[in-house]
């Protein structure tokens, strides 16, 4: 359960709802393997505010007629509007790490994103990052390994859109021009100092800082009924949907 929000809203549901609101109608959106939260957020947007989006969900039995290479070439030719990423570390310069923790020559943890994320984050027009926490282990002064960089020379052709980053505490964005993270809104129950204390680098926080509108009853209801049923009936992480997206009984 996420502090600050309705006790009936889980961390997963929070991130799903917040990201679904920022999907623009008619966008072509994709997520990679093992992407339950992104898949649910696309389907929620499609069921609510963005009915005409094209969704590419690799982990779905029925909702994707695409292979990994279709996404690869789609994004290489600049036709993918939105892609989802997570990462284990983010730093002040807008770098992220989805590869190894610790010394890259003797890592304490190996992770799968050494290469793919370093392509997609340059070629998709918009990137939504998300983390199911907000802490100084995630937001560090310098990442252990740069899997993807935000600030690149002008000869590297890429979308000018800022990365957006959704956590359990705030929504932030990284502006490539100013090379700085800014908080866009802070979730109910948290203050600017909570964000500062749990972010291991300087982040711009507007004063006063907007409060993230919490997931509404209607959004949660659609997620827990329509989206849940669609995930189950289409083989889109059905066991996950059954377990995580549940109408709460009072």
């Amino acid at each position, binding site marked *: 359960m996420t502090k600050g929000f309705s006790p009936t809203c889980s961390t997963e549901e929070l991130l799903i709802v917040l990201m679904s609101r920022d999907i623009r109608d008619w966008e072509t959106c994709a997520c990679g393997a093992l992407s339950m939260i992104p898949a649910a957020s696309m389907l929620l947007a499609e069921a609510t505010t963005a009915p005409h989006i094209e969704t590419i969900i690799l982990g779905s039995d029925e909702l994707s007629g695409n*292979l990994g*290479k279709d996404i690869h070439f789609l994004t*290489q030719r600049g036709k993918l509007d939105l892609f989802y990423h997570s990462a284990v570390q983010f730093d002040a310069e807008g*770098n992220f790490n989805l*590869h190894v923790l610790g010394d*890259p020559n003797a890592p304490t943890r190996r992770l799968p994103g*050494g*290469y793919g994320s*370093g*392509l*997609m*984050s*340059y*070629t998709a027009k918009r990137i939504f990052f998300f983390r199911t926490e907000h802490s100084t282990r995630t937001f560090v002064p310098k990442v252990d*390994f*740069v*899997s*993807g*960089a935000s*600030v*690149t*020379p002008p*000869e*590297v*052709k*890429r979308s000018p859109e800022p990365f957006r980053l959704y956590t359990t505490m705030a929504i932030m964005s990284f502006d490539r021009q100013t090379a700085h993270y800014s908080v866009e809104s802070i979730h109910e129950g948290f203050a600017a100092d909570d964000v500062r204390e749990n972010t291991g680098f300087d982040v711009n926080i507007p004063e006063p800082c907007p409060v993230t509108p919490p997931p509404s009853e209607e959004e949660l209801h659609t997620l827990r009924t329509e989206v849940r049923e669609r995930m189950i009936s289409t083989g889109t992480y059905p066991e996950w949907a059954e377990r995580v997206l549940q109408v709460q009984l009072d």
Partner: protein
Amino acid sequence: MGVPYIPVRGLAGTDVFERRDDMIMAKNPFDTDEVTVVAVAQNPDVAILHARKADKDGNALLRRHGEDVMIAQASKRVIITAEEIVDRITPDEIGGEYISAINVTAVVHAPCGAHPTGVDGYYDMDLEHIDTYITASTDDASFRSYLERYVIGKTEAEYQRLVTARVLEPAR
């Protein structure tokens, strides 16, 4: 395939370049305002690819949705191992990805050759054995004992007997 290098967008400013010497950033020769990654060709000496069916000339049906044909076309020699050897495979054969004999050096009849992974229509993955493998691979000593038990000095027939007859039954 067989090209000397290939351009790809992405990766600028990452630490990937510190750890690999097979990719560099280079100017796009057709648009000098752009730099992209240029990756040197990967040309394996030998590719070993497992097929559902092959004929004795080397035409074969590989797994669907893979990159096997591309790997074959980049490799110096290609060995096809196959569940079944049949009279003739044509480009119109359904049930897998066709590879023509011009790409293939040798064919081996190797039923159950994908174990512990599976082959659609023949047998499922042996999850129990994959678990054994993953557990064994967590440190050098346990992996060495895995290799001694299943691989080193073992013939294919001995390996297949060791991993139980269960996987030889067609999955239906």
